[in-house]
């Protein structure tokens, strides 16, 4: 079976699980909203909140990423499905791409909600001129996060129940995404007087990140989940 067909199959399966279990809607999204409210308590200043809103959106995304990635692999390890996938002999690169695709779809929903929360709760302003940049930022950053999340989630799952390692391994790696996506979002929204043209170099960094980890993950995923 070709890598792409495996990817489509696995992604379809993961999204169907998500659709049936509604963990995202019932648990992760409320958690995300809660985090956004808690940030407001901690910062307690409207103008500061508006200024740092893009950063908080991405910080909250990172936290939720950890939760979603753990869930993404918990469904595989709960009843030995990961073993069964290995026995099924499907291409590990395909599993990687499929799970990354499902993760990206879930993250996209999550980020939309977080961005909406930032507009409502933090009075972040939307500039129409930055719409293209905003969409590009979110799509490249999401792709990168999905690749890294799947790669390190697979490593933690392959190592049998050491999911506690996941934050330690993953958060340092996603730091460039946090920085790049925050700056690009600031530029798109015009936060702190930034202009969209300042945001485009960051897109390059985000795209490079996504490309590197996408390629690395497709190649290395097999040896991480194997055994």
């Amino acid at each position: 079976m070709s890598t792409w067909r495996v990817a489509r199959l696995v992604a379809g399966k993961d999204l169907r699980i998500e659709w049936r279990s509604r963990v995202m809607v019932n648990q992760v999204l409320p958690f995300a909203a809660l985090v956004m409210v808690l940030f407001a308590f901690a910062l307690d200043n409207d103008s500061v909140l508006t200024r740092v809103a893009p950063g908080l959106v991405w910080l909250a995304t990172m936290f939720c990423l950890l939760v979603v990635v753990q869930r993404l692999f918990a469904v595989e390890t709960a009843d030995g499905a990961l073993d069964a996938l290995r026995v099924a002999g499907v291409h590990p690169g395909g599993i990687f791409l499929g799970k990354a695709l499902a993760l990206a779809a879930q993250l996209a929903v999550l980020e939309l909600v977080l961005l909406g929360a930032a507009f409502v709760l933090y009075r972040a302003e939307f500039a129409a001129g930055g719409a293209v940049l905003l969409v590009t930022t979110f799509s490249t950053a999401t792709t990168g996060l999905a690749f890294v999340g799947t790669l390190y989630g697979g490593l933690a799952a392959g190592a049998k129940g050491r999911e506690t390692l996941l934050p330690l391994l993953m958060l340092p790696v996603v730091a460039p995404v946090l920085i790049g996506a925050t700056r690009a979002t600031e530029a798109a929204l015009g936060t702190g007087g930034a202009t969209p043209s300042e945001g485009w170099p960051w897109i390059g960094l985000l795209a490079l990140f996504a490309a590197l980890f996408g390629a690395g993950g497709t190649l290395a995923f097999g040896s991480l989940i194997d055994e």
Partner: protein
Amino acid sequence: MRLSDVVAVLGGFPALAGATLTVHRSEILLLRGPNGAGKTSLLRLCAGLLPVERGEAVVLGCDLANDRAAVRARVGLLGHANGLYSDLTVRDNVRFWGATVGATAGEVEASLTRMGLAGRLAGVAVGRLSAGQRRRTALACLVARRAELWLLDEPHAGLDAAGRDELDATLRAATTAGATVVVASHELERAGALATRVVEVVGGQVREVAE
């Protein structure tokens, strides 16, 4: 399938300590033996899940030491775990595992019928089934996978009388079609009647049993 003096290690413990075994095509082989003897490890090794530490293992004509990927797609393993997604329905599970080998919708339905899961049950989420029904679902997935070598670990556990009959019939049909079956079981009467040959696993090794 041929194992010669295979050693496999599980968490620093030699689960298999020089197992030698030959299984012929279309055979139904019963592995029996006490708990912890290495039956499960033997099955997992043949499925390519447990690396061969020493010795040689040739499964379906492929050496497991360097060609595990080629073996994997052609074997079906039913372990202690069912390998099912509890949020998906019975049909979705069978369809997913069937799709990994390109099974058609008709074949999926046939597998469901074979294990008595067609009808209302097929639309129920696996998480809401009883243990026996889950076992049936896992077997249906295996049927849909059309494996050449079936490795079954306690397949009868949790199944009711009808389920056992269906299982036995399925396995016999599979061997008639040219597949080979290895079963590890404690239910010697049931599995013994099914098997064409019995071997005993003790201390990580295999012993022939005189008829």
